[in-house]
């Protein structure tokens, strides 16, 4: 419990699962959820290095900015997904290829 490697391992697993979701999911909302997993993994890393590197509070400020960006990203991404749904009647991101040549 009091070891940096434990937290890095958990964060690595979270990041890899998020990556798996991003590359395999076809639903736009599911891809968004996987991106949130990746951002959480990055935050755990920031706080773990802050805690084991001499309690440096700068890591906390960075994690706070990541949370702010995640909130903005979720709002805009869902607005885009709802727009895609209104135009195509689907959010399967493989079917949304209207701009393709």
């Amino acid at each position, binding site marked *: *419990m009091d070891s*940096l*490697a434990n*937290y*890095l*391992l*958990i964060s*690595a*697993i*979270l*990041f*890899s*699962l*998020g*990556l*798996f*979701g991003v*590359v*395999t999911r*076809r*639903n*736009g*909302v*599911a891809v*968004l*959820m*996987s991106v*949130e997993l990746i951002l*959480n993994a990055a*935050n*755990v890393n920031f*706080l773990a290095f802050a*805690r*084991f*590197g*001499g*309690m*440096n*509070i*700068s890591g*906390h*400020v960075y994690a*706070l*900015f990541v*949370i*702010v*960006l*995640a*909130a*903005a*990203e*979720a*709002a*805009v991404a*869902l*607005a885009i*997904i*709802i*727009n895609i749904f209104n135009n195509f009647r689907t959010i399967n991101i*493989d079917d949304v290829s209207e701009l393709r040549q």
Partner: protein
Amino acid sequence: MANFVFWFIAGVTVLSAAMVVTSKSLLYSAYSLLFTFLGVTGLYIFLWADFLAVVQVVVYVGGILVLIIFGIMLTNKITSVNISHTSMQKGVGGVVVIGFIASLGYMALNTPWLAGVNIEPVETTAAIGRLLLMDYLLPFEAASLLLLGALIGATTLSRKDDDG
């Protein structure tokens, strides 16, 4: 006891994250994401980040998760109960993920990390506030502008208008 709680929280986090990316039902994915966020909150508390833990609950569980569930409800015909979604190329993705976990885990376990002195702070809120308004004032203001832009952009994008 603390050890057991730590591993329990870690297990909940990892297992529910796995549920998020493998579950067939989109709603089950969203509810699993709730447990992942709560587990990450527990990890924050173990990392002495009390303020960030509260922010995580308020913003992720109270904001982003509700937004995601709204997105699911708005992009599926409620009359058709079948809110399912499939994955593709799970084999290749699984191999890539296991390779990622192995290489990152090897790196985490074998790097001689520098260790600083670890004195548990009474609370971190005052220090975060001081840093935000002194060292990180410009990023702080940029983040507020970004949130304003996201607010306006999201409402403009999702609004139904016929007059262009």
